[in-house]
């Protein structure tokens, strides 16, 4: 057979390359550009090399925000994943009840971030908010503007309320894809409820759970609008997460160089965590088979 050598196929990839260049590479490169310079005004700039990166990594305020960010992301994952699986298992399988529950469960997902923040801000107010007022009436001095623990608990509760439905929805679709015959076979084998979950349902859920964990990790690591509206990062800086620190630096203080360096570090952390998690899970599955 005659093999025709031709590189024309590259032209077919070109439109996609252009699109990616404008949507991702070029904006990212401008950030890289800022991160290695000290910019005074449009005409005055100095090359600083890695100076900003070193400064950012040693900034105690940012280190604190990073720690809080990890604490937040892991806490909500630890709650949302099991809770989401549990809800999916309890959801009705068919009929009008299934549709109704599906709508009710997904409702929080449809609400925009800052609206969620506003809802909870009002909900937790001591004077007119149901939760804030209720807790005070019960004798607990609930105050998210003064007590860091209250602020944390409320933010976590808010995120769980907003995003657990996503996990539940993913798991629900995963569970629906298991043929009825598996459950029948398990009943005939006299398998317990736990055995059915452990050996039939959980293995089938692994793939959707990997996607769920990745999505939720990235999402929560970038959280901005909700805590910004709810607590404004307070009391003090106890609920100031990474993106809010970045926004203050870049927009309020207009420190373009440091915030560009910080953005890149931020981006690399997310990339790294997702990559480590994904490879770990995939290797785990490979070892098994």
């Amino acid at each position, binding site marked *: 057979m005659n093999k025709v050598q031709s590189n024309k196929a590259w032209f077919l990839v070109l439109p996609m390359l252009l699109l990616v260049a404008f949507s991702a590479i070029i904006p990212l490169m401008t950030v890289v550009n800022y991160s290695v310079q000290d910019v005074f005004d449009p005409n005055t700039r100095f090359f600083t090399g890695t100076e900003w990166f070193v400064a950012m990594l040693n900034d105690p305020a940012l280190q604190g925000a990073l720690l809080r960010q990890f604490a937040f992301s892991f806490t909500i994952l630890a709650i949302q994943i099991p809770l989401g699986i549990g809800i999916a298992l309890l959801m009705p399988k068919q009929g009008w009840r299934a549709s109704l529950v599906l709508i009710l469960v997904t409702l929080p997902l449809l609400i925009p971030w800052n609206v969620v923040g506003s809802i909870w801000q009002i909900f937790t107010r001591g004077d007119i908010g149901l939760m804030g007022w209720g807790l005070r009436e019960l004798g607990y001095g609930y105050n998210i503007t003064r007590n860091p623990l209250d602020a944390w608990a409320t933010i976590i509760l808010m995120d769980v309320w907003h995003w657990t439905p996503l996990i539940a929805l993913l798991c629900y679709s995963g569970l629906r894809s298991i043929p009825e*015959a*598996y459950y029948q076979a398990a*009943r005939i*084998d006299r398998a317990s409820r736990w055995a059915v979950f452990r*050996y*039939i349902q959980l*293995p*089938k859920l692994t793939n959707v759970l990997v996607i769920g964990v990745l999505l939720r990790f990235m999402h929560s690591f970038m959280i901005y609008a909700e805590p910004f509206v709810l607590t404004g990062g307070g009391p003090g800086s106890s609920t100031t997460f990474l993106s809010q620190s970045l926004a203050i630096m870049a927009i309020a203080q207009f420190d373009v160089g440091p915030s560009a360096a910080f953005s890149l570090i931020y981006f690399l952390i997310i990339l790294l965590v997702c990559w480590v998690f994904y490879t770990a899970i995939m290797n785990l599955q490979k070892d*098994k088979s």
Partner: protein
Amino acid sequence: MSLKLDSIDHVVNGNAHIEGIDLELAPGSFNVLLGRTLAGKTTLMRLMAGLDRPTRGRILMNGEDVTGVSVRRRNVSMVYQQFINYPTLTVFDNIASPLRLARVAKAEITRRVHEVAEMLHIDHLLSRYPQELSGGQQQRTAMGRALVKEADLILFDEPLVNLDYKLREEFRQELRELFKARNCIAVYATTEPNEALALGGKTAVLHEGRLLQYGRTEDVYHRPRDLLTAEMFSEPPINVVPGLVSGREVTFDRSMHFPLNEDLGSLAPGQYHFGVRPSHIGLTPQADDDLELEVRVELAEISGSETFLHVGNELFSLVLHLAGVHEFRVDQPLKVYLPTHRVYAFDRDGAVVHIPSHLGGK
């Protein structure tokens, strides 16, 4: 153990899926449930297993009423059309799973799993996972799970449908061998008459939720109770030609006459449906009293090393089942020979009134 279904009805959302089925399965018997899709085979199996509860009627095991007893309390196992195994367990653990749930001792589990695996020729695959196996091997694993339990009742719901032709033949033979030495009731559902014949044992023919006939497979095949049973238990379906008996003569479709032979002689005058199996009609005369028919070729299908020939004239169509691969032109004129001594006769309600004398007669 014996299993008895006592006038079972099963109604789902106002639709009767099973209607008035009486069936008694003897200990150690191999039973085939034959019927087209939606005949109620799977529903009947689910009722036998105790996965569903019949709307009316009773189910007796060894004479004891088990109608409402959950499947968890019964000693049954089931093999499905899909290959159902635990995906995260090895073949060994899959086969061992029912024993582990029954808290059998470890050494005993190992012994029995190996025994079953050897019987099913998967003993070299015990450390593999189901997704690394071929379809046939996966189904063998599922069968291993069903067999290792030594259940009183084993149900096979079209287990070979998703396997290729060669594997199915192999499986059928082994299956019969496997059950010879066992004292459990085996029930095997299939849509294919030929599979029922190959498996032997006993056959129950189901149609639209009703039991048409139950008995030894050869008996049901050779001595169908009515036209519907004969049609269900024949692949390709039995040829049916309406005819009139008057005096000493049969008239097919007002045009073709032939004298009643000594075999058919007992038929009273009147309208009948005459049935001839496709494999009995030939291209050459087999006996002197064969009826010669002039027809044209409508279609020739080749299946494996056999040919299904569809022929007809203005009055009727017939299907011939010929051994070997033959070539025919469409519209080619042809003479076919219908052996009158192998003809079944059914009355206008479909009940059988004549069975060829070499099959016992009637």
